[in-house]
């Protein structure tokens, strides 16, 4: 958080990938219209692990890419002291297939690709659990791993893959689970999914997958950050989220 | 490939060769006219960069030329199809200065190399390799690798390899220049023997005048890409015409060393009161007489030999003597006249 030439306060926000670019444009516009004198500077990463490291190291002011589950896991592993200062949206994580029309068609030995980063692995396992393809020891536990599969009634094989690659590789798998931003970018729709977790925003097991804006705990009451969160939680930004993700992603805030 | 039975081994007419490089072009050979008859041992000499290697490389088509014609056994090298050219190359053996033996193959393997793909079966090849190694006296080294051989031994392997296909022509590019005198001598003897027994035509590039003297019957002298002199070895050594040839021939004889003695006023060439210091040289092929004895007796003079260099080249004595003649001045002058009449080149150095 630095003062820029025009006496603006510059806030550096760490994001992963460029999917949210338009949303943050809307936030900036909102702030400008309020004459908040805040300039949001996006810093793009390929990978969330480095993003959190950079936040902890004060190289970033805020991050906005992860959901609760990933945040908790990172805090647990690395001992970060972060605080959520606002929810952003929930991006569905659905099961897609080029081969089958419904979940019932999976046969033993079929391969399903799920994202390889730890928290999305857990979330995808929960999706499979919810779809009834596997049974987890505790469906509500945070970030389960493949080791937490209790039963595998459908007999599918689960393979971990880079989330961005899964869509390209879908023809080679019986099914694949990946984030909605990739689905949108690939020109597909969430309705192409053969399984979608119902009412994810209120589902206990999936509540932890709401995306959040995160600051270091020491800065949780920072007025500038509060203004940003307020600007995010606006009608304009909600519209931008809808436009950006073609209505496939739900804003996780009231406006 | 047609071979006229009486065509020369190599016939070169008005050959011109230009190297084109990025920095410009360089005429390496020009106006080359040369006929090498079957059975010749043809020496090629010249300063470094004169074009000697280029010339032999044109003969087996390793290098292309720009103008003129080059016939080998009556076949125009530049008109042959690739396959025919390969066939012709099998009949031209080449010995490289750096031997170019394949380090990954044994001595036998190297000699066998030109025999692969010639239709000979394994056994026939082995037999031929054994014969060749016998010929160059290396049968006991058949299973050794090149880097286990001495320079002279490597040279012999290279010769055996060049002979593997029973070629008609053998090209040798500075093959003996890095060898000790014993090895050089034995290799020259081997070449001579191959020539005599197999009727090989041999082309020898060398900067060693002794090599030319020992085995060649003809020689060409190259200077800056042109032939400045060519002919029978005896004639060239006896009467070199081009300045370059003259300076080459001068280095082979110790008769010129007398100039150093003159400069030092050495007592060895003290001519006394009446004496004359004389250089006498054979200049024609006919002379073989006891000349010193004749003048000593006939004119009653003493001929003290200071330098002597008389050799037999091509069956005739070649070279000369530097002598101090002592006696009556008139007698000495008469003796000189006598020698001049016997077709001996005379040069009075001091009196």
């Amino acid at each position, binding site marked *: 958080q630095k003062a820029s030439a025009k006496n603006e306060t510059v806030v550096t926000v760490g994001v992963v990938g460029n999917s949210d670019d338009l949303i943050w444009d809307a936030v900036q516009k909102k702030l400008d219209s309020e004459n908040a004198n805040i300039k949001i500077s996006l810093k793009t990463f390929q990978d969330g*692990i480095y993003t959190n490291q950079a936040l902890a190291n004060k190289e970033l002011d805020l991050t906005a890419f992860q959901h609760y589950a990933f945040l908790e896991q990172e805090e647990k*592993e*690395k001992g970060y002291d972060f605080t959520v200062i606002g929810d952003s949206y929930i991006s569905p994580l659905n099961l897609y297939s080029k081969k089958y029309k419904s979940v019932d068609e999976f046969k033993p030995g079929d*391969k399903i*690709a799920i994202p*390889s*980063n*730890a928290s999305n692995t857990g979330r995808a396992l929960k999706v499979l659990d919810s779809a009834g393809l596997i049974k987890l020891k505790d469906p509500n536990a945070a970030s389960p791993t493949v080791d937490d599969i209790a039963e595998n009634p459908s007999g599918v094989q689960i*393979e*971990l*893959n*880079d989330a961005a*690659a899964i869509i*390209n*590789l879908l*023809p*080679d*798998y019986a099914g694949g689970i990946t984030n909605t931003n990739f689905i949108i970018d690939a020109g597909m729709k969430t309705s192409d999914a053969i399984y979608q977790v119902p009412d994810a925003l209120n589902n206990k097991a999936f509540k932890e997958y709401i995306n959040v804006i995160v600051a270091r705990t020491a800065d949780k009451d920072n007025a500038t950050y509060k203004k940003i969160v307020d600007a995010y939680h606006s009608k304009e930004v909600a519209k931008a989220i809808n436009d950006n993700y073609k209505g496939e992603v739900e804003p996780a805030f009231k406006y | 490939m047609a071979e006229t039975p009486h065509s020369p081994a190599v016939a070169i007419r008005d050959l011109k060769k230009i190297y084109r490089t990025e920095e410009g072009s360089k005429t390496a050979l020009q106006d080359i006219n040369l006929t090498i008859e079957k059975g010749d041992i043809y020496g090629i000499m010249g300063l470094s960069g004169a074009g000697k290697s280029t010339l032999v490389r044109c003969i*087996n088509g*390793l290098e292309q030329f720009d103008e003129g014609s080059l016939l080998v056994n009556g076949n125009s090298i530049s008109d042959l199809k*690739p396959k025919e*050219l*390969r*066939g*012709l*190359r*099998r009949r*031209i053996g*080449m010995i*490289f200065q*750096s031997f*170019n033996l*394949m*380090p*990954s*193959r044994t001595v036998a393997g190297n000699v066998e*190399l*030109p025999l*692969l*793909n010639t239709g000979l079966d394994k056994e026939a090849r082995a037999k031929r390799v054994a014969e060749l190694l016998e010929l160059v006296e290396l049968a006991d080294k058949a299973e050794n*690798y*090149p*880097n*286990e051989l001495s320079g002279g031994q490597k040279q012999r392997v290279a010769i055996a*390899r060049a002979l593997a*296909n029973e070629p008609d022509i053998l090209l040798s590019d500075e093959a003996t220049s890095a060898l000790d005198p014993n090895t050089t001598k034995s290799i020259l003897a081997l070449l001579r023997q191959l020539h005599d027994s197999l009727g090989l035509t041999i082309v020898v590039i060398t900067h060693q005048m002794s090599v030319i003297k020992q085995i060649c019957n003809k020689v060409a002298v190259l200077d800056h890409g042109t032939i400045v002199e060519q002919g029978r070895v005896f004639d060239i050594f006896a009467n070199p015409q081009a300045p370059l040839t003259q300076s080459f021939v001068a280095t082979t004889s110790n008769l010129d060393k007398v100039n150093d003695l003159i400069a030092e006023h050495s007592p060895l060439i003290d001519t006394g009161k009446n004496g004359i210091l004389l250089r006498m040289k054979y200049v024609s092929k006919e002379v073989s007489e006891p000349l010193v004895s004749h003048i000593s007796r006939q004119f009653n003079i003493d001929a003290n030999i200071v330098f002597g260099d008389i050799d037999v080249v091509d069956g005739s004595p070649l070279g000369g003597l530097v002598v101090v003649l002592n006696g009556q001045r008139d007698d000495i002058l008469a003796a000189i006249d006598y020698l001049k009449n016997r077709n001996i080149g005379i040069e009075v150095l001091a009196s």
Partner: protein
Amino acid sequence: MTGLLSTWFPNVVTRLPEFFDSFVQTLIMLGVTGFISFIAATFLGVILTITQKGGLTPNPVVFNVIDKIVNLFRSIPFIILAAALVPVTRALVGTAIGTKGAIFPLIVGITPFFTRQIQSALSGVDPGFIEAAVSMGMSTPEIIFRVYLREGIPAIIRVTTITMVSLIGLTAIVGIVGGGGLGDFAIRYGYQRYMLDATYATIIVLVLLIGLIEFVGRLLVEITEH
């Protein structure tokens, strides 16, 4: 022994079968890719060597086309190349995933580098040997097999060793598109899940593997060099 192992490498010991599978996948990727790209690179390297200016059969067109293609592929970051090749891979081998699907992108990724290496190995063959062969009346294919490839063996082994080490680096990248292998193992557990021992175990095994490759390489060079 197992006691020590499970103290030092707790996460690896509990995933030993997976670790072992990853190792086997790495070996398969190295072996199959190494073999196929060796043949391809040798072929291309030979063509480049003989068609270059001053080569045995100079051919500027062939040379420049191959030379430029090699450069083009060397310019593409491997991860992008691997992603771009997915449809081609699928068309060729039926799948773009798993070890089987990883091999084609690996081949495309390593062959340009390998080709350059083979080219430099062949350029070390004394031109005098080639001249000697030409003057013996050998044909071009004979010269390629009996001189270039044969006399180039020690250098070819040396550059193959270097290439195999680079290939190990690529197998780690291809892991993220589902190729498996040790690099992928290290990334999934060591990097994504902070199990440092997984990283260390991987590094140790890879160092040993590379040491072994280099040892075998040197041994072969010594055997073939006289």
